[in-house]
């Protein structure tokens, strides 16, 4: 046996979990019902029992380096069946939040987003104020014509000037987090190799949500999430295509409603609306979906406001007075900026970490001697 692990009962972790709403981990008595009912557990990745045990003993370093945390889709099959009401699904959720906070760089940003329950007015308000100030400084909100063309009030160059650096920041910060995460599991023999080769397979799993579909308690949520994912992908694609339309095809903005790119954008918007409504409904109505903490609520709130303002901005052009439409547009831009900047620290980062974890698990499964 390896040399013994020396430790003290980590009361700090207990307190931290308690503060974040996962104090229920203390109730676990290791019956392993959670791991038995979980449909995502494989021989290469066992959870949540192991993580519950580590949480009890206070092995925080192991927890934040454990990629299997991300294989959990928080369907809460385990929470629904836990005989001690230890809520393993929620505990794992909190541990994921904790992990993001420990891995992401820079640290102060991670802490800021990690305390979103308190800091959210800053996280949302600052980007909106920033945009308002920028527009005031450039066009002074001008005197828009009728019908309203947003480009006249918010010049395209400001969009590029803000979002390209913001995206670059998000990529750089996420990359730093991903690298730390990567190193943590590289010490594991079974995980040697590049998970990048597995990304195609992972992408297929993600696009049809084949893994998420195995979660019984969360089946309704999974459909909402699928709609939201496709809506996001559609919206991202539309953004790219519009740049192509403007500079490649020389089209004038706004595009007419019958334009194929516009249709794609509207379909994406519809998917986003359906998806986010669905998810909000499962959170509000489904008691078994698990407790929502700030980590979850902040991200969900951002996406909700993003979708709501996005759709509102499109309609406002035609029906609202110009000042209201522009006001909504400023909020929308602020939310997009907030989403970009908080990506590496918010629940949004699950797109990164879960993808990597799934690749790692596929790799481990391949390397396991048959």
């Amino acid at each position, binding site marked *: 046996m390896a040399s013994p*692990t*020396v430790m003290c*009962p980590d009361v700090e972790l207990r307190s931290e979990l308690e503060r974040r709403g996962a104090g229920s981990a*203390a109730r676990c008595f*290791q019956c392993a019902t959670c791991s038995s009912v979980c449909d995502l557990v494989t021989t290469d990745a066992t959870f949540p029992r192991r993580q519950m045990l580590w949480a009890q*003993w206070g092995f925080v370093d192991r927890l934040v380096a454990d990629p299997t945390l991300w294989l959990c889709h928080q369907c809460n099959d385990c929470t629904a069946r836990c005989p001690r009401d230890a809520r393993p699904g929620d505990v794992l959720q909190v541990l994921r939040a904790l992990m993001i906070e420990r891995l992401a760089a820079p640290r102060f940003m991670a802490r800021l987003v990690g305390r979103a329950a308190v800091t959210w007015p800053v996280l949302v308000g600052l980007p909106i104020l920033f945009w308002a100030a920028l527009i005031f400084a450039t066009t002074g909100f001008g005197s828009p014509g009728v019908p309203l063309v947003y480009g006249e009030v918010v010049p395209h160059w400001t969009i590029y000037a803000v979002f390209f650096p913001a995206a670059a920041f998000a990529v750089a910060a996420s990359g730093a987090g991903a690298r730390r995460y990567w190193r943590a599991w590289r010490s594991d023999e079974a995980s040697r190799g590049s998970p990048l080769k597995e990304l195609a397979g992972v992408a297929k799993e993600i696009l049809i949500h084949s893994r998420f579909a195995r979660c019984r308690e969360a089946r309704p949520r999974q459909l909402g999430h699928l709609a939201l994912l496709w809506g996001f992908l559609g919206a991202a694609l539309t953004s790219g295509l519009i740049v192509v339309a403007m500079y490649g095809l020389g089209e004038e903005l706004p595009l007419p409603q019958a334009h194929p790119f516009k249709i794609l954008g509207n379909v994406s918007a519809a998917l986003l609306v359906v998806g986010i409504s669905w998810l909000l409904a499962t959170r509000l109505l489904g008691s078994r979906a698990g407790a929502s903490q700030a980590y979850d609520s902040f991200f969900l709130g951002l996406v909700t406001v993003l979708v709501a303002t996005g759709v509102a901005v499109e309609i406002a052009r035609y029906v609202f007075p110009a000042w209201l439409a522009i006001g909504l547009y400023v909020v929308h831009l602020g939310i997009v900026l907030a989403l970009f900047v908080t990506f590496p620290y918010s629940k949004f980062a699950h797109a990164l970490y879960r993808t990597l974890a799934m690749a790692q698990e596929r790799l481990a499964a391949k390397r396991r001697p048959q």
Partner: protein
Amino acid sequence: MERIGVFLCTGCDIGASLETGALAALAKGRGAVHFAAHACLCSQEGVASLRATAEGGAVDALVIAACSGRHKQPEFTFDPARVAVERVGLREQVAWSHPSGHEDTQMLAEDLLRMGITRAAKVRLPQRAADHVERTVLVVGGGLAGLQAAQAAAGLDHPVVLVEKTAELGGYLSRLTDLVPAAPPYDRLEPSPLPALVSAIRGDPRIRVLTGTRIARISGQPGQFVIEVERGDAREQFNAGAIVQATGALPYDAARLSHLGYGQLRNVITTGELDLSLARRDLARVPGGKPPRRILFVQCAGSRDDSHLPYCSNECCGATLRQVLAIHQGWPGVECAVIYRDLRTPGQLEHFYRAVQEQTRVMLARGTVASVTGHGGTLQVSVRDSSLGEQVELEADLVVLATGMVPNAADGEAIRALRDAKRRIEKNESETQRKAAEETAASLARHEGTEILNLTYRQGPDLPALAHGFPNSHFICFPYETRRTGIYAAGAVRGPMDAAQAAEDGWGAAMKASQVISAAGRGEAVHPRAADIGVADFFLQRCTQCKRCTEECPFGTLDEDEKGTPQYNPLRCRRCGICLGACPERIVSYPDYSVDAIAGMIKAIEVPEEDEEKPRILALLCENDALPALDDAALGRAAWNPWVRVISVRCLGAVNIVWIADALSRGIDGVLLVGCKRGSDYQCHYIQGSELAHKRLENVQETLTRLSLEPERVRVVELARNELPRIPAIFDEYAEALAALGPNPLKGF
């Protein structure tokens, strides 16, 4: 008895499955002075006819051939001192378990009736020996169980004398202010009920409290105990009707737990020592006198471990949780960790466990503590077998060992063996004898001077110790019972338990004490032969002083005079009949259960000739579990082998070997004894009956071999009360085994 009346009930399928005319002829042929058949004997009319016949003096014995004696008891019970009643269970043993109208069924019924009439002829009427009894209850031990027993007995209108050896009442609990919860919602500490109970006892005029007092001597029998107590130099004598021993338990000696650092490291203490510190509101036990920051509790310290206490003490987990919560509330900065093998919180304490689990400063984890070593002021606790699957070292400032409970009881039989050995050494009869005696004395030396009750009983001065040294009867059906009638164990001396259970025990034992006093006053036995007024008769002229009866009586009923002749104490007697089974001279008999009566029943079985191919099996069934199981099997219409003839015995220990010889010499093919389980998980209602029967039967089988009879012709089967489905198979398998042996060669001689 001389004038036997036979009443045949033809209800409940009996009449339909049997030829009743033949039974009537049989009854007359066996000398019955009265025969009547009734379609429903337990009806008002039927009972009236029975009563008229019995009370009119026409008969002095009733043979009621109807249902099993376990049914319809209110209807078929008459004054036992005036009329003997023999119940023949035709309904269960014939009508409901064998094919109707079959030749074998009829033969079975006739055999059973013949056996019943024979027995009725051979029984005697018992005389009710009511005597003066003392109603005082003596309670030994002033802890919670004893106090509760004293209060309960006083509440049942008994004068009580409470004897406590220390100067104060309260026992272990006097060091605790709060206890684990005993009432809903079971999630917080509760103030100890002890102070209120002590002042209630002190102020109760019915209860005499003798502190600083020990028992010098107890003689007599239930209802008539003579107690001598010693208080300093003063001696006092009084009478008592029953005794409750509530002497509690002691913590397991932690000095034997050196691998856990006890005795070597100052900051390794026991639960009891932490309780003292908590009572002083002082946690400063670590070197340097600083209060500890991290406390680690080791559960099962010396428990569930074959080299220490093999059992679980049931209470230590609750005690640790209690201490953890008290520390959490009183010393908020202190962190606690509990390493357990299984956290056991029986009953409602699970709620308490969960409440403590919610406390943020408590870590509860599974594992085995392999060692505790010192490292400056900090202790290193090595934990293995944790769920983590790896060895972990934990650091702590204070380690608390949750030690188990050892009964504070004396082993009466061991003390007697020690005294006997010493006497043999003094006598110094031969070199080898002296050596053997010296060895015995050395091995029992630890029992020297441990006496608590100082009984004058022949079998020893204290209660016999049963499993793990607890004097409790151990079997779940008989709580508080010990192997001394009229002396009941309550609280932790009976088994490891917490305060709430000990208080409940006090109530239970007080009720048993009250019960035995009233039964003694009526001259009746107590459980399981409650209401039996017949006492054993020893025909001492033929006694050879072999001492088997005085040795084997499970209840210490018999004392001895100098020559070794048994001296019977009827109020100690439970009427199990184990002395009857033991006696080689067959001089012990009860009015309705004697060697002669049962032998007569065996001889009443008609054994067909070999060529008729109708073997006969005698089945002796214990009346406590096996016979009720048989009755219930019949109730479920189980069918069994028609060759079997059942006789109910008081206990397998109450089977005299001569009956087996009688049966086999009459040509009966085999003898089956069905009784309660023996061994450490025994279910024998007389504790040792089954065990003794097995030993005696081994000797019988040797004898059979010498007589060139197969030892397989006698078989002992253990049957629990709920194992009725096994009964038909037990009989069938035995019949097959006997068929393989062939018929009894003694048939027809």
